[in-house]
């Protein structure tokens, strides 16, 4: 599908189109499906790869009553800040602070729990008057990248001062840090046997960060991939 056919576009759509990317639609969200290249057929776990998930739904929830509000909606809470938990419907819920959460909808083909929140995350709502927590518009304020591959830790070490070694940075651990001098959220969630990370950062600097990652990954032969290969990698 043509990414310009919808009003909502990833800031990376031009770069992806330049690679000849085929896009797909998941419940109205436009994401790269297949990116032509040497890894187009399959993705080895050790291959360093980058995927733009910015089209997929995500939202933040923040406020003193955020925990109660999310719990009533059926979400399971990560016990500690800077950790995450997969929900039964596939949504990934990350706890950024005691009263601040990030919900990512990568896993499912539909995201009923998160879509309700995203739809409320528009100008038309008046949630504050109804005693609800603040829905942080992360769908539009942040880009969302998926980085996979055994060299992803070494590559990230060129951009970020956090120790991402397996022994130090566990599965579903979150770091709110600086990547290439840009505020970013990094969440480790391995894909199959491959080290993998979610990276969320300022939407306005999407192209800058994309280029920084590709530059840092060049020595590891980084490849841009689509959602299809990520799904295959996860299934092993």
């Amino acid at each position, binding site marked *: 599908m043509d990414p310009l056919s919808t009003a909502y576009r990833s800031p990376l759509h031009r770069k992806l189109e330049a690679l000849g990317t085929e896009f797909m639609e998941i419940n109205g969200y436009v994401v790269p499906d297949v990116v032509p290249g040497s890894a187009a057929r399959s993705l080895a776990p050790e291959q360093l790869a980058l995927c733009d998930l910015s089209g997929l739904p995500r939202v933040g929830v923040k406020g003193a009553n955020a925990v109660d509000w999310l719990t009533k909606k059926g979400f399971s809470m990560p016990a500690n800040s800077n950790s995450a938990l997969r929900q039964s419907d596939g949504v990934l819920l990350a706890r950024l602070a005691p009263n601040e959460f990030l919900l990512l909808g990568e896993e499912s083909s539909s995201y009923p729990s998160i879509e309700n929140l995203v739809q409320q995350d528009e100008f038309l709502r008046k949630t504050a008057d109804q005693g609800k927590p603040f829905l942080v518009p992360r769908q539009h*304020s942040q880009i969302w990248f998926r980085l996979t591959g055994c060299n992803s830790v070494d590559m990230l070490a060129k951009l970020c001062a956090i120790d991402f*070694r397996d022994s130090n940075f566990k599965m579903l651990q979150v770091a709110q840090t600086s990547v290439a*001098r840009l505020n970013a959220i990094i969440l480790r969630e391995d894909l199959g046997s491959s080290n993998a990370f979610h990276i969320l950062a300022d939407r306005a600097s999407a192209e800058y960060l994309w280029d920084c990652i590709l530059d840092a990954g060049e020595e590891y032969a980084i490849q841009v991939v689509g959602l299809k290969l990520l799904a295959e990698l996860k299934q092993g």
Partner: protein
Amino acid sequence: MAKFSYRLQGDGGLYIDRTKPVSFYFEGKVYHGYQGDTVASALLANGVRVHSRSFKYHRPRGVMTMAGDDAAAFVQFPSEPNVRGDVTAIPEGVNILGQNYLGSLKNDWLRVLDWFGKFLPVGFYYRAFYKPAGAWRYWEVLIRRLAGLGKVTLSSQPEYSDKQYRFADVAIVGGGIAGLEAALTAAEKGAETLLIDDQPSLGGALNYARFDADDATALELQKSLLQRVAKHPKIEVLSNAKCTGWFDENWLAVAVTNRLIKLRALAVVVATGSLAQPMVFRNNDLPGIMLGTAAQRLIRLYGVLPGKKPVIVTGNDDGYGVALDFADIDVRVGAIVDLRHVAEPGPLATEARTRGIPIFRGHTVFEAIGKNRVSSVRVAKLSSNNKPEKTNIQIDCDCLCVSIGYYPLAQIFCQSGGTLVYDDKTGSLQIDSAGASGTFVAGSVNNRFHIDAVRADGRCAGDMAAEYAGFGEVNSSRKEDPSAADQSHPYPIYPHPKGKDFVDFDEDLTVNDIENAVADGFDDLELVKRYSTAVMGPSQGRHSALNTLRIASEAAAKSPNGMRLTTQRPPFSPEPIALLAGRGFQPVRHTPMHHRHLESGAQMMPAGLWMRPAYYGGVDQRSTAIRLETEVVRNKVGIIDVSTLGKLDIRGSDAAEFLERVYTFRYSKQPVGRLRYLLMTDSAGAIVDDGVACRIAEQHFYVTATTSGVDAVYRNMLRLNAEWRLDVEINNVTAAYCGVNIVGPRARQTLQLLTDDIDLSPKAFPYLGVRDGYVSDIPSRLMRVGFVGELGYEVHAPANAGEALWDRLLEAGSEVGISPFGVEAQRCLRLEKGHIIVGQDTDGLTIPHEADMGWAVAAKPFFVGQRAIEVQTERRLTRKLVGFTLPAGSRLPDECNLTVSGDDITGRVTSIEESQVCGYPIGLAYVHPDTSKVGDCFEIKLSDGHRLMAEVASLPFYDPDNLRQEL
């Protein structure tokens, strides 16, 4: 392939690959070497001894250390000066030159300086070139020409360099015997261990030194250790990596080719080893005179013969090992000159005697003879108090190998806070006090020399480091090495009446220079260093510090043990600036419509981190483009991308109260659906930001801030709310929403084509109103604002829909001649309307009343800066921001040109534009309050000194009754 006159036959040479020949040029002549050869080893293999010229006297210099530790091996690469030729591999075809000569390397005209050494005593330049006053600037040109260190090629393109963070439980600096043992011990205890070694292959001295008569120990031990290290899953090895500095909390800087690694380790083991030291005698710098370890490196690492007629001078048993290395390759050693009188012959000495090598015990080399290389040495018998007696022995040689002691390479350890002290028992320096917590030493840097003692010390340090990093208990203890006392001669210094007995080879300092420095009253090492420049050269005292200490203490009649040593600071070895700069990261922010601007031919300009369109059109059409853009806005309709505006969501039951406290205006009674101007002052009452507050709901405000100010505003809000503890949630949503200002008489007509759910009529949606709805299919917030003085709507929408919003607005307005306009046109339009830009028309001291914005300061119980504003307004203002005009056709002042009254500065021009609607230049400027009334005149001093008379005008310049923006 040419035959090498000094290349050993066979397959010797650990670092070279004899199947891969390499050619290069040195001083214009082609030479051949092998892959793995350094510049120095390849030149020596070709019989080239003179590699450089010395810094001051332009004496010929050749290889001394083969370890990258001295300036004698400096050569000039095409794009890089001061390349350490003794450790730098030769790239194929590279054109290499010597350094620091006039004429040719072989025949340097500046060699004449060597004859005038007696007229260039220590510290002479402190006294010689500064009188009469101003003389230095003339001398400097000449001196810099004479005493350069290579040439910087400004046109060269640096290679790509970058940086990387690394982490380890235990970092081992040094891959010698102690380092290997330490790494294995720490890793065995479970610590993730990073082993940093500056050589191509691990093993340190095991690669080149001789430990026993049959030379078997090193091979076996190295094989065993390397196998264990290679197999250990917890050990990672960084070869060819230089640890250049230790910083707080075990943060190490490690340079690996073109990468600077920033390594954070829980514990560090410094196993950097020790450096063999030179000996002081006349002409001790002649090419061919080198450290014994340098000769061993040449033989074993590069398969190069250091000389065909070697002589060894030694103060320990290691010199005998050097002699045996020569003997093993069937080179006859002329003599072993042993400074010691009564040394018990060790196994190496016994073997040397067995092989028939002449040995002179209790003798020293007193003088070397030769022009461009050593050709013989004069040997003198030593008295019982180490004084040379009559010289009656002369031995022909083409190579003199020196092995008289060691200097601990403790710089990294000292940077961590450890200290060294001279030890009378060992005749050298040793660790005096511990370094930082978690930093340990091991091996010869810790005064362990016997191979068993070094191994045990390495294991113990690894044990302690692992324990510090949280892996098990320490179950070993340090043990002294009795053999340490036999390693270094206490005073291998034999001054010659005719001088040229060099102590510091980098700076051409002799024994006499150090003694004179002390005689001039500089009897502390730090003072000797600064006065004489000893130890300040490229090798940073690695081969001069110890002998300088000995000579200075002798001259000062002090014990070297009591002398304060000089301070060790990073970097330990040179770091290219490109490495420090690395790959720079400079974030840049693009609005969602960025590419649309580029496609429309916009000239982009930075606004903080953002890129904004300045105007649309070619650079040569700037004025025309800006004029046309302003005309479109005044006459039709224009759109400008205002996505960079700061946007803050403020919610909660105390949201209005919060704004009351943070901003100067009133907000508690602001109706829902209306927006109001915001002015923020700091605690000193100075204007720091402005914007508008949209009341979306009773407990919800949507606030805009300036592009460059929003981050500071957000931080300030969070800080204030932390203090006040109001029921407020604050979020910076700047990047989440784009913004487009559609403005001009046809704005409503255009927008109506896209909006079904918002009544745009003036009555339903008046000036300063806010409405939420859809523009096309895009959920949007519309605000009626009047920054440029025309009917306008600021449309905010989700950022991901920004490009689509822009496209649809342009499409909708195509029939009425819509056009995008840039920041330059906007600046002109807002100036015509008399609106200020915070940061341009204000500075860090501007209070609202100076900017004629007292109307925005409400009488209310409190806001940040209120008291300061009250105090300042009670006083007489010293300046006032006014609008002014210039006669049509006037030169335009620059922004920041001064406003003056006679010779007094009264202010500055903050904004200036050639207004199309007015027909003459208009601007804003700070002037003295006495000349701030409409009709008053004041002077503007132009950049070239000329003055213009300007007249104060009433604001706004355009549409004073606001009829157009409130249509």
